[in-house]
């Protein structure tokens, strides 16, 4: 706050009206963002292209292309895509049910509040919850085994796997989608539906030609966000699987802790790879969005 005061004190004297020092007011924020957000990220990016002597090299990035690391990236991307996609679909259907599905109106508020809770209930406790429910001694596992005679583990299910992790991630992915897409569905005007209908369109044609194209940017953006959300999640996976499931964030976590390889520059490259993947996801999103959004001011 003192800096804002300083900015005011530094306001231009009356005889030089064209020089504005208003930018001084954002200096604290810019400095903070630079020191604790931009610079650390740049450090990783440049580090990925340097050897321990500080010279430029592509060797670190080339090192990523070994089977174990590639498969880690691959399974991370698969989990992120699957949980983001399912999160979008299920979250969309739930939001649709709330907004347009004719549910009693008292359902809406508790459901949105719960979504707020669940979307923030990630990390270690979430892993505990799913272990207690779908683990080998979990409630659902036991109920299915004892009451219905279905042993899901005999069918190859494992909470410490691709499927299990995706199922767990959905617990925060779905509510996040609900929170973002509900206002978007609220913004769909009733007249659009009625105009389409009176012009002879079926419900399906309305969704295909009007509603989905209008919602498309929101859906894409949420998908990109959910993807990044799952791709960077460490705590849930680490608490759930320890180091037994080799996904990129866990690999990097182990690298930083010094549990595995001692080459810090491979760590840089791993982190750089993560930035590249989420960066590509967001670039694709922005590109598709500008293509689909010509009709917005």
């Amino acid at each position, binding site marked *: 706050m003192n800096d804002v005061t300083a900015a005011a004190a530094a306001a231009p004297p009356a005889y030089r009206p064209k020089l504005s020092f208003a930018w001084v007011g954002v200096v604290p924020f810019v400095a903070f963002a630079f020191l604790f957000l931009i610079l650390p990220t740049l450090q990783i990016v440049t580090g990925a292209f340097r050897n321990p002597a500080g010279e430029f090299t592509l060797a670190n990035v080339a090192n990523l292309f070994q089977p174990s690391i590639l498969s880690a990236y691959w399974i991370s991307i698969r989990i992120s895509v699957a949980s983001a996609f399912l999160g979008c679909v299920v979250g969309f259907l739930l939001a649709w049910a709330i907004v347009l599905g004719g549910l009693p109106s008292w359902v809406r508020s508790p459901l949105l509040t719960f979504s707020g809770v669940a979307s923030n209930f990630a990390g270690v406790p979430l892993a505990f919850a799913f272990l207690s429910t779908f683990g080998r001694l979990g409630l659902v596992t036991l109920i299915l085994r004892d009451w219905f005679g279905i042993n899901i583990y005999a069918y190859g299910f494992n909470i410490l796997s691709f499927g299990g992790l995706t199922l767990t991630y959905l617990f925060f992915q779905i509510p996040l989608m609900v929170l973002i897409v509900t206002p978007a569905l609220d913004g769909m005007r009733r007249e659009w539906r009625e*105009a389409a209908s009176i*012009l002879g369109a079926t419900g399906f044609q309305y969704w295909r*030609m*009007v509603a989905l194209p209008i919602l498309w940017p929101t859906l894409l953006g949420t998908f990109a966000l959910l993807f990044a959300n799952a791709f960077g999640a460490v705590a849930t996976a680490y608490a759930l699987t320890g180091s037994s499931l080799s996904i990129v964030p866990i690999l990097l976590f182990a690298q930083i802790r010094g549990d595995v390889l001692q080459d810090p520059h491979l760590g840089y490259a791993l982190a750089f790879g993560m930035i590249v993947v989420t960066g590509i996801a967001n670039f694709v999103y922005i590109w598709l969005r500008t293509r689909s959004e010509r*009709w917005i001011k």
Partner: protein
Amino acid sequence: MSDPFLSIRQVRKAFGPTVVVQEFNLDVKQGEFVSFLGPSGCGKTTMLRIVAGFEEPSAGTVNIGGKDVTALKPNQRNIGMVFQAYALFPNMTVAGNIGFGLKVAGKPATEIRSRVGEMLDLIKLQDFGNRYPYQLSGGQQQRVALARAMAPRPQVLLLDEPLSALDAKVRVSLREEIRAIQKELGITTVFVTHDQEEALSMSDRIVVMYNGCAEQVGTPFEIYNRPATRFVAGFVGTLNVIEGTITDPTAGTVSIAGGAVSVGNRVAGRKAGEAVSLALRPEAIALGRREGRDGLVKGTIREVSFLGSVIRVRVAVGEALLSLDTFNNPASPPPVAGETAEISFSSSDMLILDR
């Protein structure tokens, strides 16, 4: 009268215990322009939405072109509709919007293109086909909405307060344009509005609605000059109401503040001493004596508003405050508040308000 093209029979609509439309009957001829006029909440929009198929009537039927459409969904009725707030699809160009109805009907692309061109000519927006709705003004958007509704050649056109979101100048020019297009294409049209000026200037016939009932159905001339009920008289146009007492029912004399008037046989059968409400349009009252006018009362000028071509004068006559309009005359100065004045009218212009 030829067979009605759009026929609404005994329609009733209730949402739970609230009745919004009751016992509604209407026949509309092919090519006729009919307005539903009334204050908000009178059921006019609900009635329109029943014709469109968005609402199901609690009772009664809707026939279009001799076919009962009451049970049909909106997309099976072949109706065109223009909504209050444009409701253009924001993700489609003007051409895409206009062609939408043909596209969902599976028409070939060449036919769609030529029909869209025709419609753009009709609304005089030939060069706007590739624009998006946000790039158009309100009036342009509403013309596109009209073209979109007309493109699939609907049997009936429904207009739901299409002008109310526009500013005054555009509203007047667009209403003339809509009427011209409607006449050119000869399409049967139902127009919903709360603006009496729109209804009077555009319609072949007007249905004045109040509390879910059709109060009166008639031409604009009839509605304005021979209102059937007190509500119609008060809602359409400005009206001066004068309370009077019948002095002689057979002779038709009624005493009012500041004088007496004769209304002929229109109070026949009623008792002397009974109260009666008389009404006069502002344009039927003149300042000063006029040739051939039998009504004459004295009063005091209270207020003079200069409206341009017309000067509206309010004159206190007894308890009542009467509004009257005189044309502006550059040669003579307007009357001044505070002066006493005589006002004259023809008793045959007087309306007797029964209910």
